[in-house]
């Protein structure tokens, strides 16, 4: 029973990582860039949701929608202002810019909302399920987070596989120049990718803060890095891979805290990452891509 409880804790935080990782993997898969500001867009989403529920007194669902709208606009703006001018330059330049955007968002949040942490009220209102006299508790947040991340995963898979826009995205991912020659608007497609990724970030932010209630300007950075690790473990660019990687990472983290050391859990998580990359350099579900010469 005890093991089961830790497993559930692990899946709980893991599914939050998974939903963040889905955003990372989506942008990487299509725009071929690591959007390190993703974690901070999550933080912005959580703040918007917090403000709408706490200061305006509107219901949780409205706050999520508001967060999604704001983050989508923010995502498109970031892409237009920071990444688009650098398209075609070295990937290192884009990476550094992404880190810059990340710092910018964190500091802007400090200015707007202050440095004192806020306590996020969970959007889940129903009671936790308790088994065996409270020895095993499954909180509503766990169920909602897992359900939402599976929904998002299936939705994204269908979207990229079946719709016109999704096909355009895959075409851009495979060969940007050829896609352009075939009449695909590359800029628009990449903007769309950022819009979707940022809307996902808003959902992830709300779920993250429902699970872990502390909200401060740095809230997104550590989960963002872990989710990036999760995306790499699962195979970056692969949608089911992000999901698998996220949940696996959450479970490894929780079990190493329980059975090995609460202090070295991060070291263990990153050691696992190294091991997996040594055995499977493209991650668990990543595809081997032939480099064109």
């Amino acid at each position: 029973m005890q093991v089961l409880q830790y497993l559930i804790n692990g899946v709980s935080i893991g599914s939050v990582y998974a939903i963040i990782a889905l955003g990372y993997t989506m942008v990487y898969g299509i725009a071929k860039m690591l959007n390190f500001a993703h974690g901070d867009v999550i933080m912005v989403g959580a703040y918007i949701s917090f403000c709408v529920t706490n200061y305006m007194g509107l219901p949780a669902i409205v706050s999520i929608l508001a967060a999604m709208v704001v983050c989508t606009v923010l995502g498109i703006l970031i892409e237009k202002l920071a990444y688009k001018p650098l398209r075609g330059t070295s990937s290192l330049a884009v990476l550094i810019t992404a880190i810059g955007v990340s710092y910018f968002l964190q500091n802007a949040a400090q200015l707007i909302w202050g440095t004192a942490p806020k306590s996020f009220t969970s959007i889940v209102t129903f009671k936790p399920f308790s088994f065996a006299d409270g020895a095993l508790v499954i909180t509503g947040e766990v169920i909602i987070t897992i359900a939402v991340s599976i929904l998002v995963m299936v939705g994204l898979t269908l979207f990229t596989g079946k719709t016109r826009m999704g096909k355009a995205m895959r075409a851009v991912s495979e060969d940007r120049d050829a896609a352009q020659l075939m009449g695909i608007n590359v800029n628009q497609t990449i903007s769309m990718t950022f819009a979707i990724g940022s809307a996902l970030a808003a959902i992830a932010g709300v779920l993250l803060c429902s699970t872990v209630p502390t909200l401060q300007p740095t809230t997104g950075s550590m989960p963002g890095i872990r989710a990036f690790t999760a995306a790499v473990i699962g195979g970056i660019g692969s949608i089911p891979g992000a999901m698998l990687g996220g949940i696996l990472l959450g479970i490894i983290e929780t079990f190493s805290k329980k059975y090995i050391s609460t202090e070295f859990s991060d070291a263990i998580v990153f050691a696992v990452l190294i091991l997996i990359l040594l055995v499977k350099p493209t991650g668990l579900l990543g595809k081997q891509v032939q480099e064109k010469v």
Partner: protein
Amino acid sequence: MKKFFALMMAAMMVVAMFAGCGNAEADAGTIKIGMTGPLTGGAAVYGTAVEAGMKIAVEEINAAAGEDGLKIEFKSQDDEHDAEKALNAYNTLKDWGMQFFAGAVTTAPCLSIAPSAVEDQIFMMTPSGSSEKIANSGSNIFQMCFTDPNQGANAAVLVSEKNLGTNIGIIYDSSDDYSKGLMQGFKDKAAELGLNIVCETSFTNANSSDLSTQVTQCKDEGCDFVFLPFYATEAAQVLTYANKIGYEPTFFGCDGMDGVLTSDGFNTDLAEGLILMTPFNPDAPETQDFVAKYQAMMNDVVPNQFAADGYDVIYAIYDACVATGIDGATPAADACAKLEEYFATYSFDGLTGTGMTWDASGMISKIPAAVIIENGKYVAF
């Protein structure tokens, strides 16, 4: 062009010389107290609280001093909770002619300034730097708050006296000196008193975003009392998660947790029954005057113990100066020697306690007070 620069430089040097002259002039009727603290940045909440508490004390004293009484000139500098910037801030204050140093607010800046204060023989009293290393830096360094191990030990005594728990759990932040010091003090005293610690678990700054495992561990070990020596941010997480899984032991925090009730968006129901050690109770009748003044100054924010510690430091220094006949013309080193001697037998009453005394190393001795949260308010425990 070169000539122009040379002239400019010469002009600047002349100005600097005059500026220096201005500073050296001391007014006997006014003592100069300087303070550094994080007034901006991540720890700003503590620095601004101390600064405001000190300003209130200075205003009160200057208003009460009248025409001929001893007045205070107060100057604060921002150290951003950074050791190096703190030292620069301290030097700025020294150039200004500071006689007494009422800082710094946080531990790392205190430790970086202390050696200079010892060398300069400037009397230093930190309102809230709680590491025992600070007081041990020199005989002229004093503290207004408990040292971490002392506070931890006080907590253990309270647990034993009031019989708060039979199976004790501890969750602490192993990457934080404050938390570690408290934990160690608590553990040592607990062993002495025969308290039964069944679960000891920790987290670090990097993985503090998810504390569910640690809370579940305490629950599994059947802890009916959990000691939480850390800050309000993590406390809110622990309380929220424990509530979710229906775990209801007695939670016990330290002064760092002060402010948990005022955290934006926090559901105060979760903190019902939380006991915390804090020397200052904003809901007590004897502190109302200070609370009202603080709220008028800080947009209705309720003062925490940092503000009260700052207020007490100013009064402690001022009262001691009056008693020993120190005035604005006394050189800092002479004042320091006099105060050092005076503090050995000094008994001070302030907002954070009555009959406070200091030992030879500069550590404070006062009655440890605890409060319990009932109906969203502090009640003396």
